[in-house]
């Protein structure tokens, strides 16, 4: 209260400031690292800065260096932090057995193994060597895949490479849709 006597008789400015306000800093100051990223939503490709603190994303905002976005973001881009930390995000493998009515837990390793087995089995069962006219097919239509437009080029590349070698041709993504 006595601080009001110094150039602030009405107590409207500095004399009302709390200790916390005096020492306040933006939380990005406490980030362990800032990583340059790209917005995961539309195809404009806005630059993002990802701030990491205590092993978690503490802030995501626009990268002013990007000549595309100049640091700006749309609402989705601006909401990216809660996209990667959504309360609905899944962190564990979930498994539903045939005719099951509940999700069950499964280790990642076991899930991977089971999926590999199913790929091999379905491929065997649905393999097409050639068609009725005797034309070479070398393929399976029994395994399909959809997705890729939200993935990295490197991921799409490996998908196309492996599925092609496997003979799976119905490999598709959002570009069709």
């Amino acid at each position: 209260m006595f601080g009001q006597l110094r150039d602030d008789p009405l107590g409207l400015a500095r004399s009302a400031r709390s200790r916390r306000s005096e020492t306040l800093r933006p939380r990005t100051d406490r980030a362990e690292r800032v990583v340059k990223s790209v917005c995961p939503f539309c195809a404009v490709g806005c630059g993002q800065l990802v701030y990491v603190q205590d092993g978690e994303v503490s802030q995501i905002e626009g990268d002013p260096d990007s000549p595309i976005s100049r640091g700006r973001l749309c609402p989705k881009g601006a909401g990216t932090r809660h996209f990667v930390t959504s309360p609905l995000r899944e962190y564990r493998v979930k498994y539903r057995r045939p005719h099951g009515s509940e999700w069950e837990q499964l280790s990642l390793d076991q899930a991977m193994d089971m999926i590999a087995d199913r790929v091999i089995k379905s491929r065997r069962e649905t393999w097409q060597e050639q068609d009725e006219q005797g034309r070479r097919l070398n393929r399976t239509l029994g395994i399909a895949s959809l997705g890729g437009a939200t993935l990295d080029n490197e991921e799409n590349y490996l998908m196309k490479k492996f599925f092609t070698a496997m003979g799976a041709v119905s490999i598709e993504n959002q570009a069709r849709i």
Partner: protein
Amino acid sequence: MSAAQNGGAPAADGYRSYYGKPVLKEPVWEPIVPAYFFLGGTAGAAASLGLAARITGNAPLARAATYVNALAITASPPLLIADLGRPERFLNMLRMFKLTSPMSVGTWIVSASGLASGAATALELLGRMPRAKLAAEAAAGALGPFLATYTAALLADTSIPVWHEARRELPFVFAGSSAASAGAASALLAAPPQAAAARRLAVAGAALELVATALMQRRLGFLADPYRRGSAAKLTASSGALTAAGTAGMLVAGRSRAGTLAAGTLLLAGSLAKRLAVFRAGFESARDPRYTIVSQRRRVERRAARSQPSSRR
């Protein structure tokens, strides 16, 4: 324009708004706040009455007024604290002294007069240290009138049209209402022979309140609509009727204990209803954008008319 999207098209009564939404926010205060206005006002006026009675040697009345003051002011802080969003931080109220904030100034007044009243009451009960008691009574009595009127300043110092535009009259309404309630309460406690001054104060206060209310509503013009329509209207009408009846009763009751009891109760109820009416009217006034927009728009037009002969719209 379509039915759905009003697009700022004029409403039926000619003003434009954003989907009819309020410009202002309604207060978050609960009805315990006007209850405090009533109690604080009663305490303040009672303190003054007590002091005057003490000076004039009317000890029974002084005692009665002191008790009224003590009861009312003791009940006040819990009400004030209960209404805070963070009650545990009530002491932050004394972090600053801000002339621009009637609540800040008022908090200091309540605190000071609360201390003084407390001391006076304690000494009255103990029957000790009469000089100190007199000093305490003097302090409480001197602060009393402002304890009764600062709450009106508190309401007037907001952007709510029905409060802010009533800034000249509202303190008189509260002063009168406080006098009425303090007089009535003291008259109830004191023996009829010694309570004449209290009865007179009650009547004078009620009269002041009724007159000030009329003046206030006249000045407010259409801004006083919340007193005529909606949730505050009933309270306004009740307050007026109760106060008028109480006044009349007080005038005819004379030394009749029963009459005083009845009239006093009516006046107390009228005084409380008045605070509630004013309080509710503020909510109505904030909720309907018409009050804010039309009054300000008229002001703009008046200014435009003054600066150039033809106004824009």
